[in-house]
């Protein structure tokens, strides 16, 4: 298994290389002088020259590119322009919170989305189907910051069930869970929408397939026909959707963190933007892109587990 993962990683190397190159170019081929953007146009030429040296902008582009690649390969994301701290350390400090939030959303999404989609398809046009449509429409319609704000107003400001500001660095696991609840629901709603949708349409298709007719001709009760024969086949598109929308999820996790004032990549991004910390921004782009590339590999591997055709074709 580990060897497979290693091989698959090897195959992802060209993509990774292209992604990193794109990040490098994006930050460097900006119109205008980056030192002016960072320091403002009142800065003295000396300060600008100093910054230029710190950024390595005085070297030829190719040399910069080489250094950038070597650094990344060593797991070094450079130093922040503002705080001069190593970016990898800053990222490492907040990454667990973002991962925790994303995983919680994924969990909520599949736990609610899959059964909801199955039952909706089974009783087409029934009450559950109607409910599933509403839920998925809501999940697709709310921008994460809008739903976050509305949740915050309803449950934290008005009802006071949850804290307005998430206190995450507490040792009390219950308290930590309480702080996670609203953000996770906010993010989870999006995933519920996607998962419900793909499960529902996948089940509708699966239930009209020949193999479902075979299962019924075998005299299996509809419970087994639906949950064993049909659902197994729907897991493949479900996994695809989860993999595909992980990017959407990460983007929305950032927003959720901002709204709920949780530590995480979101806050880091906002502060980088506000302080025009291009080094930090570059580092964060590398991290999120790596996360997506890695998630794609994970999706591919999961295919092999849910679909025997992939593994033994």
């Amino acid at each position, binding site marked *: 298994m580990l060897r497979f993962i290693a091989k698959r990683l090897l195959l992802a190397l060209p*993509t990774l290389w292209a992604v990193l190159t794109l990040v490098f170019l994006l930050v460097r081929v900006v119109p205008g002088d980056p030192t002016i953007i960072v320091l403002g146009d009142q800065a003295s030429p000396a300060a600008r020259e100093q910054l230029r040296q710190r950024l390595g902008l005085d070297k030829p582009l190719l040399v910069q590119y080489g250094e950038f690649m070597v650094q990344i390969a060593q797991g070094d994301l450079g130093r922040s322009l503002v705080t001069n701290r190593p970016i990898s350390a800053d990222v490492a400090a907040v990454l667990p919170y973002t991962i925790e939030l994303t995983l919680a959303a994924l969990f909520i999404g599949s736990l609610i989305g899959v059964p909801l989609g199955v039952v909706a398809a089974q009783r087409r046009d029934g009450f559950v189907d109607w409910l599933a449509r509403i839920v998925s*429409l809501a999940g697709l319609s709310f921008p994460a910051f809008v739903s976050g*704000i509305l949740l915050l107003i309803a449950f934290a400001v008005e009802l006071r069930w949850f804290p307005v500001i998430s206190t995450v660095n507490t040792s009390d696991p219950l308290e930590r869970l309480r702080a996670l609840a609203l953000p996770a629901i906010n993010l989870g709603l999006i995933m519920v929408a996607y998962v419900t949708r793909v499960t529902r349409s996948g089940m509708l298709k699966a239930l009209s397939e020949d193999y479902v007719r075979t299962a019924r001709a075998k005299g299996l009760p509809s419970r087994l026909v639906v949950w064993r024969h049909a659902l197994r086949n729907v897991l493949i598109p479900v996994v695809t959707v989860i993999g595909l929308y992980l990017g959407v999820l990460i983007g929305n996790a950032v927003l959720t963190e901002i709204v709920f004032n949780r530590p995480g990549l979101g806050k880091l991004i906002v502060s980088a*933007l*506000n302080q025009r910390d291009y080094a930090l921004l570059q580092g964060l782009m590398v991290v*999120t892109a790596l996360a997506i590339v890695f998630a794609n590999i994970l999706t591919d591997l999961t295919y092999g587990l849910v679909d025997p055709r992939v593994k033994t074709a």
Partner: protein
Amino acid sequence: MSAAAAVAAPPVAIAAPSAWKRATRSGGLAIGLVLVVAMALIALLAPWISPYDPDAQDVIMKLEPPSAEHWFGTDAFGRDVLSRVIWGSRVSLFVGTVATLAGVLIGTIIGIISGYYGGIVDKLITAATDVLLSFPQLIMGLILVAVLGPTLFNLILAITITAVPAFIRVARGSTLAMKERDFIDACRALGFGDLRIMFLHVMPNIMDEVVVMGSLWLAAAIRTESTLAFIGLGVPPPTATWGGIIREGFDNLLDAPWLSVFPSLAILAVMIALNLVGDGLRDATDPRTPQ
């Protein structure tokens, strides 16, 4: 299904009239279309229907809750929130529409070329698409605007760039499916040129899916625009944008929640409308959708 299909010869295929019938039968599409048209009218008629100048400040009337004069209340500068929400629809709808149209146009053409020619052209385009899709769409948009600077044009550019790879994928996938059909081979056997085949035979047949995606993407584009504005990367103030109003409201969340609620509801209405339209179109054009 197969039993019914076996008896109902000749098979009923995707026909324009039956698609329309199915579309009108689904109430969602009708509701969605009405809402979209209403929103578009509001945006177009903003100068005539908004009760106040959206930028007129009134120091005395700061953070007033909703009242008969100010239906949606006022903001921290005493500006009328209703007027700002009405004017804000212009930016959101304009940016969303232009960016989506550009994304559809560019993405569809590249996608068809990629799927139709296959081989090395396809490999390169697919690889480039994969790389672009390796960045979370929102973060990509965010960084592009941050780097390029928050102007109307750059916003549109950034959102278009995030939309293009999505449409390349859809168009390429549909084109590959079309290529499996014999009529494309028939066209080649008849000596038709590649351009004729791609744009007169492939394109009309994949537009159903592209249009469905387009309406859903319009929602996504508007969402991205308002999100960027919320983060502070929208069209710069004092221009009213929905995301911007919410951002200002967010700072006064505890004492003036209406400030964020009303523009949020506006965004929500557009999102729901466009999603209803997208779903309705999908149901109407997908021949597999059971009635």
